[in-house]
């Protein structure tokens, strides 16, 4: 099947992006280079086309109850205009997807799903709650992410309101350069920033306006390559790597997004049981103590015996060493534990450590 193109495809081509087929979409993987793009987001700002992400709406009189049944987190904890990170689980606790949910009102919610999961999430939701209340709106949105310490200043000239007044994990319906938009103070990089949802026909104009506004900060377009290294430095999970149908939120260490106080949600019984009983594999971060680059699928050893596997790995552009995440047995999960990553049959020394690998203050803002 021919991969889908976002409304910004021609712009990416004109910027000489390299493309990759990702979840059925032809997406820019890099423009000027992964490391340069990564560091620009850490020190100033970058612009991402993430229009491949899916948008699924749950609406109607019973929407809040339906959402509460679908998600592990508690939508009752936030008000209208708030967003929440959550998981959708199966009855056995396996993760269907991880989403950000936007709460417009008690009767209208928008789930932002991973591109690889949009269809699965849509069908799953329709099977679990009244189907008529679940609508796939993915075709109605282009999505941009403005990320980096200069994001507020980049956005200010484009909005009629003060962008800094949008609090973290909140959103507004506002105009960007005259285009109707949903703008949230969210992101997947660990930096300050905004995610912007617009009509696909407005996407090229908004992209150009943001790039123009960001020019004085040296804003760069950023591809999926740096999106992955940025999220990995923060220890954020990526569906298909750290999260799958066969892993649970407890194994992934995402307990704080699971509200066991809620009367019920799909998967609650299994997750509760697992939280009590303990898990056989735990997601950890690790860093290499020697040169090398860990990659998804590499084996982890503890004192010469197999103890897990790598789910994601890269060379951290900020720390300049190999970092990764892995599922390991309980005996290898404590930060500080020395483990080995098997790279091409060679045992490379590594150490389990807490995530994030990077904290904002490592870098001073540069304009």
């Amino acid at each position, binding site marked *: 099947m021919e991969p889908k193109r976002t409304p910004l495809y021609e712009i990416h081509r004109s910027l000489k992006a390299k493309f990759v087929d990702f979840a059925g979409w032809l997406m820019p993987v*890099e423009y000027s280079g*992964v490391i340069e793009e990564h560091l620009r987001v850490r020190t100033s700002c970058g612009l991402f086309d993430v229009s491949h992400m899916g948008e699924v709406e749950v609406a109607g009189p019973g929407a809040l109850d339906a959402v509460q049944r679908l998600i592990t987190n508690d939508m009752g904890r936030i008000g209208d205009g708030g967003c929440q990170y959550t998981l959708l689980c199966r009855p056995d606790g396996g993760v269907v997807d991880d989403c950000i949910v936007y709460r417009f009102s008690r009767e209208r919610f928008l789930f932002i799903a991973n591109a690889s999961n949009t269809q699965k999430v849509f069908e799953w939701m329709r099977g679990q709650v009244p189907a008529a209340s679940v609508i796939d709106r993915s075709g109605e949105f282009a999505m941009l992410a403005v990320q980096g310490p200069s994001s507020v200043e980049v956005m200010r000239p484009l909005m009629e309101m003060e962008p800094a007044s949008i609090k973290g994990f909140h959103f507004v319906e506002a105009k960007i350069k005259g285009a109707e938009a949903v703008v949230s103070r969210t992101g997947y990089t660990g930096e300050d920033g905004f995610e912007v949802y617009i009509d696909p026909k407005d996407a090229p104009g908004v992209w150009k306006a943001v790039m123009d506004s960001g020019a004085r900060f040296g804003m760069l377009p950023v591809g999926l390559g740096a999106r992955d290294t940025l999220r990995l430095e923060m220890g954020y999970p990526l569906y298909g790597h750290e999260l799958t149908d066969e892993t649970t939120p407890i194994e992934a260490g995402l307990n704080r997004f699971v509200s066991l106080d809620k009367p019920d949600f799909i998967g609650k019984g299994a997750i509760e049981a697992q939280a009590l009983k303990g898990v056989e594999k735990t997601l950890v971060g690790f860093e290499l103590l020697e040169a090398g*680059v860990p990659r998804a699928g590499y084996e982890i050893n503890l004192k010469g015996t197999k103890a897990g596997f790598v789910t994601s790995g890269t060379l951290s552009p900020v720390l300049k060493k190999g970092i990764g995440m892995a599922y390991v047995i309980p005996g290898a999960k404590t930060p500080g534990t020395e483990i080995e990553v098997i790279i091409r049959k060679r045992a490379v020394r590594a150490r389990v450590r807490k995530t994030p690998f990077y904290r904002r203050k490592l870098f001073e803002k540069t304009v």
Partner: protein
Amino acid sequence: MDFPKDLKYTREHEWIKVEDDIATVGITDYAQDSLGDVVYVELPQEGATVTKNEPFGVVESVKAVSDLYSPVSGSVVEVNDAVIESPEAINEDPYGDAWMIRIEVGSPDDLGDLITAEEYQRFIEEEK
């Protein structure tokens, strides 16, 4: 993109320069551009034996791992330690500072199927 005419090439994207019976080997401009930022290189030790069309090392970018294939058989007489220290040289100067190994060529017959700059350029156009 640059493909010096005084070098020979492989369809695995290595370049080779033979002087007397010593072959210097690296990867092409096209290869480094396709890889993106190179962050790690693994090369054989001096004295190691390499075999034509077999992997002799590994180059890793942020995104991916690629094998390096030896254009000829022979023994490694010199390894560029500087490129192991600073793999980014592969992006900056693939035909100069970022040469990888020097091989004492075992058999001149090995050189027969190496391709010219023009042939290599045509090959990558077709591969795209």
